[in-house]
């Protein structure tokens, strides 16, 4: 790696680490309900319009129910918009009605913060659908994640209560005070770099070779800002941020990469503050940073080698030469660590080992930063398991931030941690045998298996990135990936809410020297161990026949 890559990497981590506590404190303040001058009038107008009583607190069931209703309505809205787009304005290309299953898949995908794209934006969706449907869900699904995190942190911090806050207030405040301002700033900077933002017809231009080329346009900058910040990842154009209109310059690339991790990282910090232990938040962050750097290191090590199957050339096939190997690898690791899923290079073209890392990043349960809010609350499930095992080993009924961990908490934690993985395996296994599953493959051998495995991992962990190569827009994959996305989202959210409710009802147990501390180096190491081991034990057999087999074959000079 050249020195400028090192400088860029250092700058990236410095900025991320520096901005995290700043933004994290802000997020914590907003979720605590602190008054925001100037804007709070808008907030009150929203409450009175929607007849929300911001002072009314909800128990975990009501909170979860409101959330499900809200997301359910979101799915229906996006679905209807797609089915009616040919009758609606802002469709300069006159794009036809979206097929039902594809529309359903897309609706589920955006409402669950997955942004799996079985469609290609420029050839399928009108500007109106992109803006009113997808971009709106980009905000709301991210806000939903923040709300769950807020409720969980209250469950930990509060004692002997069932009140976890008000879902509507949390969503409103997260959108209004966190997501909108940050997106606005990023969108403006991005459009200054040349990201398009208009309602024009697609342009047809004559290339130097004399061919005609259609240049798709549209309101991209506004969607791209939030798709990066809200760990959504659904690009305006089909090839996502590899497209020069989505990601034109090195600066835009740097900022978009930073935006992937910014809010998830800040959320971990905010969670610590809200749950009453800044140290714990910092420890969760430390675990995230450590695994991230580890994965990035391994990916780069593999990427910077040469490809024995391609005359020992660098692994540049399928990558943007404008961006190069390091920024592509950094983005790939970031986008799969955080459940973002946007890409600036095709993951199918990564070296097998690096491709395996992007997959394993997701298989760890999207907790290495993870999605906005979702990363932390899922990580908390792992932390619960960690303190349980550690507590046993030090001979004391485990406590997590002063709350005793008993059977109920373990039930919720294992459901949230294991269920998505279980369905990923089942769906992928079935698809690798039946014709409907195999028909979509464009590659043979272990690479084909990786494509299937990647697709369901991405959907089931709400990441949304694609390995490319798999034709996911078939009835079979549209239905199955939609199911995986729903399970991956709500089989975690519901146990987390139940956990929050259960913890809120407990009394506080003060720590003693016999208590295993939920911060510090030992905790971080153990947490990392639990995350990696659960992910590895669950997926190692499947990975061994996909990327691992491919890696060994590549060393023998065979590629797929």
């Amino acid at each position, binding site marked *: 790696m050249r020195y400028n890559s090192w400088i860029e990497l250092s700058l990236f981590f410095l900025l991320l680490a520096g901005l995290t506590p700043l933004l994290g404190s802000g997020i914590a303040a907003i979720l605590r309900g602190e008054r925001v001058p100037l804007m709070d009038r808008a907030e009150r107008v929203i409450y009175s319009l929607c007849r929300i009583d911001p002072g009314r607190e909800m128990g975990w069931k009501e909170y979860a129910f409101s959330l499900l209703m809200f997301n359910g309505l979101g799915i229906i809205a996006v679905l209807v918009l797609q089915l009616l787009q040919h009758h609606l304005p802002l469709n300069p290309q006159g794009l036809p009605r979206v097929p039902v299953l594809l529309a359903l898949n897309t609706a589920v995908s955006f409402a669950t913060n997955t942004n799996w794209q079985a469609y290609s934006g420029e050839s399928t969706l009108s500007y109106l659908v992109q803006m009113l449907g997808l971009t709106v869900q980009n905000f709301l699904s991210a806000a939903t994640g923040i709300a769950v995190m807020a409720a969980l942190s209250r469950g930990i911090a509060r004692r002997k209560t069932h009140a976890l806050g008000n879902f509507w207030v949390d969503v409103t405040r997260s959108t209004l005070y966190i997501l909108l301002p940050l997106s606005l700033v990023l969108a403006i900077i991005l459009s200054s770099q040349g990201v398009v933002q208009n309602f024009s017809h697609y342009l047809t231009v004559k290339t130097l070779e004399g061919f005609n080329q259609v240049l798709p346009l549209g309101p991209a900058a506004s969607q791209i800002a939030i798709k990066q910040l809200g760990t959504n990842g659904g690009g305006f154009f089909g090839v996502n941020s590899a497209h020069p209109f989505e990601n034109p310059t090195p600066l835009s690339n740097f900022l978009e990469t930073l935006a992937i991790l910014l809010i998830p990282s800040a959320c971990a910090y905010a969670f610590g503050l809200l749950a009453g232990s800044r140290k714990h938040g910092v420890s969760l962050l430390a675990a995230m940073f450590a695994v991230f750097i580890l994965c990035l290191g391994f990916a780069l090590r593999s990427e910077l080698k040469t490809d024995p199957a391609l005359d020992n050339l660098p692994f540049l096939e399928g990558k943007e030469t404008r961006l190069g190997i390091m920024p592509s690898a950094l983005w790939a690791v970031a986008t799969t660590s955080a459940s973002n899923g946007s890409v600036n290079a095709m993951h199918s073209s990564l070296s097998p080992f690096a491709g395996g890392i992007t997959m394993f990043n997701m298989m760890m349960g999207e907790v290495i930063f993870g999605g906005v809010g979702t990363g932390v609350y899922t990580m908390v499930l792992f932390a619960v398991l960690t303190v349980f095992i550690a507590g046993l080993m030090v001979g004391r009924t485990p406590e997590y931030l002063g709350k005793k961990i008993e059977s109920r908490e373990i039930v919720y934690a294992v459901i949230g941690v294991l269920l998505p993985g279980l369905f990923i395996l089942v769906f992928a296994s079935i698809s690798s045998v039946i014709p409907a599953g195999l028909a979509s493959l464009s590659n043979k051998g272990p690479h084909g*298996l990786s494509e299937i495995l990647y697709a369901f991992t991405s959907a089931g962990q709400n990441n949304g990135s694609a390995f490319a190569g798999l034709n996911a827009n078939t009835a079979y994959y549209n239905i199955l990936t939609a199911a995986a996305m729903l399970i991956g989202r709500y089989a975690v959210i519901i146990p987390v809410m139940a956990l929050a409710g259960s913890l809120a009802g407990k009394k506080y147990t003060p720590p003693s020297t016999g208590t295993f501390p939920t911060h510090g180096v030992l905790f971080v190491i153990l947490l990392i161990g639990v995350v990696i081991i659960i992910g590895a034990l669950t997926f190692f057999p499947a990975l061994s026949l996909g990327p691992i087999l491919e890696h060994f074959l590549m060393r023998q000079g065979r590629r797929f």
Partner: protein
Amino acid sequence: MKTADKKKLSLLEPRLVRRAVRDAFLKLDPRVQIKNPVMLVVFISAIWLSLIVLMDLIRGGFSSFNFQIAVWLWFTVLFSNFATAIAEGRGKAQAETLRAMRKDTMARRLSGKTEQRVSAAELKAGDLVVCEAGDVIPGDGDVVEGIASVDESAITGESAPVVRESGGDRSAVTGGTRVLSDRIVVRITAAAGNSFLDRMISMVEGAKRQITPNEQALSILLLSLTVIFIFAVATLKGFSIYSEHASGSNSFATIPVLLSLIVCLIPTTIGGLLSAIGISGMDRMLRKNVLALSGKAVEAAGDIDVLLLDKTGTITLGNRMATAFLPVSGVPVDRLADAAQLASFSDETPEGRSIVVLAKDKYQLRGRELPPGTRFLAFSAKTRISGVDLPEQAGKPGRSVRKGAIEAVHDFVVSAGGKFPEELRALSAEVARAGATPLAVCDGPDALGLIVLKDVVKGGIRERFAELRRMGIRTVMITGDNPLTAASIAAEAGVDDFLAEAAPEVKLARIREEQAGGHLVAMIGDGTNDAPALAQSDVGVAMNTGTQAAREAGNMVDLDSNPTKLIEVVETGKQLLMTRGALTTFSIANDVSKYFAILPAMFAGLYAASGSSGPLSGLNLMRLHSPESAVLSAVIFNALIIVALIPLALRGVRYRPLGASAILRKNLLIYGLGGLAIPFLAIKLIDLLLAAMGLVR
């Protein structure tokens, strides 16, 4: 029953082992197996594989590999059964002895003034029974009349008889114990079948063993891991079919191999030993002569972070002792010591004796002949003074030596025509401030000085409290003393806090307050007035010498009646959790090596050029002999490790009072890293043996 043999039953005594082997087979009953989901999976796999072998035989084929796998899966189940059986064995042996003792005794029931002989089984709570020397006490109760020495060795294993008397804190008697002398009347408090002995039998037998909350939580985790591993392996079949098609080569993912992989991955090590750990926890308590009345209490003991103890008898020796003589100015200390000793010769109280001993030890004042006609004055609460009047003798005038409370001695000195030095008052105030009790001494009209009486803290108790503190337990001393005295003793004994002038309701309030603050409180008590506090505390340890009310209220009974026993109780509770945690970690860490043994064995054939092994043999880090050998070695290791860990499960992981992080670091190194590394070595070793013995292709 003699405790001697109860305690000396070694871990793997041949008699117990023989019985456990038999029980291991009896436990193959599906109704038993279904209670342990992890082992149930192994059980079903063993049956499935046996059927495969059987079908092969019927079809005229025989796979030695499948047969060996089936055998070892059965061994895995049997080993786990054996572990449980051996843990239960000791308890069962004890229960039998106890039961033999609970032969149907006859009771002499009092109705009015008349006695009536009835069977002990007919007794109801509230009945009055008479027991005389030689009688077996027919049921649990309180002595309401009389005093007797009772042989309680059946319960406590202690051969020395104990005294039981009406009133006070030593009134409880236990059914099945024998009166050695005198006559007592006992009010029965527990109906037959619900007596202490009955409960003891059911506890040691493990019949009523309830799954404790923590064990339940762990079982859920183990069950979930089992489910996810079943799915990870089942879905692997699909991936392997794909890979076989894609590569046009064969894998070794047969049903026996897939079943082997499932059995190796699911946490059988901890799953197979889980109930043995729980049972042996109760058993270890019993060997320390603590009878836990529920498994939950044993577990809770490990979580205790506040301990309430009585001062008297626990922290201090029962009585105050003289520690110094403080003369007023102008009086040589020898004179004071001499007078003090004289005044105490006839004082048979422990305090009086301690004064004589102090004078002897420090000032070499030996006992001497007192002239005839010497008159002793005993201490009384009214006069608050005691002493001796020596008659005139050999020219020496008679002397009136007194010791007692300052005011009483003041009055005596003044009435004898002397002058009471004000200095003495100041001195005594100073002594009291230091938490000791001053006794003034005078010789006729001369006030000589003070004897300092102090509560003497038991030797070694400070270290015990330091140990508790390292365990994360805060100690609170309960005493009836005034706050000043209490503070001084607390400082000397090294307790963290004290509760002075404590009445029963104050104790109760304190426990509630600690609990409201989220603490788990243990309390040791013996008296009836301790009963509410014992019931309120999370772990209430009642002394066996205590009252029936106290024993009923607590959830543990210390048969030795030794208050510092709580440290061992806490250790056992912690060991119980630690053993579970350590074996869980070990079990999960083992899986890594099993993947590296079995996965390459299954898939080495993929993309293989004929005659050589394929790319995934790159995962065969252990360089195992052959795919069959690899799978079989992993299965054998998985079975043998259960046997190897039985002693650890029964004995428990050693607990040392270090901070949580230090313990965790140590256990992670041993069971985490060890769990990663050991199977690599062991599987390789088994593989070498199998190949050498020609058991595999």
